[in-house]
């Protein structure tokens, strides 16, 4: 299948590269070449079974990013650093501004524009940027390549060795109606502890923009990093996120992925547990209503011995929506003594909604503990009945049960940050869906 239109993308890529250091310009060119050569994924590839890749192809080069963010999210409002170590806002893939709590600025942690960092902090950025492209078999690499060529900007978060951030780094990202490509890099050096909370929204509910974004996450030896993604795009937005992570010896990566919006979402998250003792915990919640098509793929690769992972993705589908979850779990011969568990639960709230689940195990050695489980069902009548005997209306009982279903992930969101907002959105959606 040919990729079109390529020529405007070529010139856009060159234009973006003009302000970049040579090594980054070269990486962009290489990305574009791979994208042009590789073509689009085939529908026959199972990861594209439920989503036509053609729908993700941008019709034009990235539009010029908007320079005004608009209203700040409520949790940004107090203007102090009481809840966060740093705040940053990004628009259409470009970091507009970032502020670090001055009281802890001496710790040397960075929240910066990625392209600026690529120029000024080459030693920190160059070895890590694009370094994860080929991990996990390069799954999904083609749109990755496109985003590499075209990205307009992004955020660089760097937490130095041994630093503990007691409050999260809070990033808000907003996109408009055009095509945006962004790339971010999060580096947690050895023995550090940090949390990054990113939310993504549409500038206007009716914006029908497309966002390709790639986020690379490096978790150093013994580091503990939690990353929370909250996606609440408008109904007409298209989102193609690729999040690639690599965890070193005894490091722990916790991710919480919340997907509430977007008309079409095709998400890929890969984690390479690269050294012994590395661990990943991945929680996901998906609420699909209206005509949303939310397609989430995860790939956990136990590339080293004695690594462990635990994944729990939960989706509720309402309206005429569709949620697809494809979870791949691989323990190669090098991953002896690893343990890996996955669970995918789907709550079907409407006859017209659809939930697909493909949990995959690829186990190439015997000394492992590995399992997965999937359950798809409507709200349990007994639970509903029980809640109603406690005096709740049927609608409230439903809300309570669905929120309870999502609670294990919601409670991992740092307090005062987005969890209440997410609950409100869920309650509103549930009110409309019932």
């Amino acid at each position, binding site marked *: 299948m040919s990729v079109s239109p390529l020529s405007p993308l070529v010139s856009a890529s060159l234009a973006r590269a003009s302000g970049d250091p040579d090594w980054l310009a070269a990486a962009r060119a290489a990305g574009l070449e791979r994208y042009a050569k590789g073509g689009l994924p*085939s529908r*026959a*590839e*199972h990861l594209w079974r439920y989503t036509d890749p053609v729908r993700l192809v941008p019709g034009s080069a990235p539009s010029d990013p908007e320079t005004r963010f608009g209203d700040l999210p409520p949790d940004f409002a107090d203007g102090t650093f009481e809840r966060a170590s740093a705040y940053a806002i990004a628009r259409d893939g470009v970091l507009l501004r970032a502020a670090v709590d001055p009281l802890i600025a001496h710790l040397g942690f960075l929240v910066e524009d990625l392209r600026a960092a690529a120029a000024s902090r080459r030693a920190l950025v160059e070895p890590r940027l694009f370094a994860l492209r080929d991990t996990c078999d390069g799954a999904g690499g083609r749109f990755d390549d496109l985003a590499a060529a075209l990205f307009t900007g992004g955020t660089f978060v760097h937490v130095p060795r041994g630093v503990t951030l007691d409050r999260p780094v809070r990033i808000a990202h907003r996109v408009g109606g055009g095509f945006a490509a962004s790339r971010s890099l999060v580096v947690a050096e050895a023995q550090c502890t940090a949390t990054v909370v990113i939310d993504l929204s549409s500038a206007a509910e009716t914006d029908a923009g497309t966002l390709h974004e790639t986020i690379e996450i490096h978790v150093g030896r013994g580091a503990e990093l939690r990353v929370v993604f909250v996606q609440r795009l408008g109904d007409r937005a298209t989102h193609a996120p690729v999040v690639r992570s690599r965890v070193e010896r005894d490091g722990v990566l916790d991710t919480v992925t919340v997907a509430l919006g977007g008309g079409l979402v095709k998400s890929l998250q890969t984690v390479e547990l690269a050294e012994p003792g590395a661990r990943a915990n991945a929680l996901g919640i998906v609420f699909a209503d209206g005509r949303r098509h939310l397609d989430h793929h995860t790939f956990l690769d136990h590339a080293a011995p004695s690594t462990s992972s635990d994944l729990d993705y939960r989706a509720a589908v309402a309206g005429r929506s569709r949620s697809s979850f494809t979870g791949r779990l691989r323990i190669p*011969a090098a991953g*002896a003594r690893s343990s890996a568990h996955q669970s995918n639960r*789907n709550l*079907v*709230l*409407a*006859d*017209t*909604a*659809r*939930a*697909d*689940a*493909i*949990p*995959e*195990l*690829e*186990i*190439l*050695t*015997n*000394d*492992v*503990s*590995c*399992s*997965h*489980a*999937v*359950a*798809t*069902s*409507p709200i349990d009548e007994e639970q509903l009945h029980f809640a109603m005997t406690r005096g709740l209306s049927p609608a409230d009982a439903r809300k309570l049960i669905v929120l309870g279903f999502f609670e294990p992930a919601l409670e991992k969101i740092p307090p005062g940050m987005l969890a209440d907002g997410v609950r409100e959105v869920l309650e509103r959606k549930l009110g409309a869906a019932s």
Partner: protein
Amino acid sequence: MTPDNGPTPAETAAAERTASEARDIGGDYDRKYGFHDDESAYDFKSKKGLDHAIVEMISRYKKEPEWMRERRHAALDVFLAKPMPRWGNSKLLDDIDFANIHYYVRASERQGKTWEEVPEQVKKTFDRLGIPEAERKFLAGVTAQYESEVVYHSIREDLDKLGVVFTDMDTGLREHEEIVRRHWGTVIPSEDNKFSALNTAVWSGGSFVYVPKGVKVEIPLQAYFRINTENMGQFERTLIIADEGSQVHYIEGCTAPTYSSDSLHSAVVELIAMPGSKIRYTTIQNWSKNVYNLVTKRAVAHAGARVEWIDGNLGSKLTMKYPAVYLVGERAHAEILSVAFSGKDQHQDAGSKVVHVAPNTTSVVTSKSISKDGGRGTYRGLVKVHKGAKGAKVNVKCDALILDAASRSDTYPTMEVDEKKVAVEHEATVSKVGDEQLFFLMSRGLTEEEATLLIVNGFIEPFTKELPMEYAVELNRLIQLEMEGSVG
């Protein structure tokens, strides 16, 4: 079972049964699997390769009706047009040389193979299974007399009286053309996949079973399929129709290994379970380890019907087989129970498909896979619940046992749920033989080899207990042979 606990009583019982009954294996092999040759001249073998001329020749040779001849030709075009599947073990699939296969063989005299040429491993297996001397030569292809067509047991007179038809597919087409024409290819159209197209073009043999309304066939109907001429493809075509309220158990068995060079086996099996009927289809396949076994099996279950696939896969180089049940009538039920054993250089890519179309349909899938010596076991499954299948219940359980660090297990289940009021559950585990369990058994005086075998037999007990006794015993015996030398 969970491999980390001590053996359950069922496991212990299974092992004891293995020990006590294994001695008797083969004692009545001839009676059970005895062949008789009721055809006279065997004199046709197509040249290697596949084209319309071959298809024409097969159809003319068989003196088939025009519609079948046309279907074969149309299917050949579909086969040639369809690309090779890009999923599964593409590398092995791409190794198939379609030009180097005989697509139809009926004669048998030509091969000059002698008993000395039969590999030691195969001879040893015959020995261990206790297969009689004459039978061994037959199974090893030394004195083989039966080729692409089904050899089936004499139909007992009481079946005739009941109006049960149990014959090979070619005879079925000749003698029951109307009913064959009405149903043949309706469950699996030739366009379904590349190999169903191939089968439709060159099929030969297989079984045709028709059970009239309300008739319950008490004894299992058994057919014996095998491959034994070098580079010979085998393309059986089976159609089983259980009319309203009837019951039948069909056994397609090949417990003993057969010996041939690379060969292709690509069967199509269609089951039609009319309202209130029950079909159980039991298979044990043990092709020699260079055979491609690429099979399409699919059943339609109407209201209140029950279809059971009991499917065991031991041999072959690559097996791709996913027995399917389409539950199109209310309260229809599907049961798919399978075991796959993958040894050195083997890939068992097996699984199941259940498609819930009607309300209150139910299905239970149980899959057990064992890999050893670098073997690869893949479970590939589909659960699809269509809109309107309210009250559907699906339960899938896949367990894999990996016996050494070089072996592999994959689980690729797909669940597509398009209806609200359903309950779909899927669970899979992958594990090794539990150290604690081994230790426990060895502390009771078993060698490591014996203990491992006991655990493996316990692991597949849910499957073996559904088999007729003689098959269960043979299966356990075969597993024991496969296990030999793996530990200690």
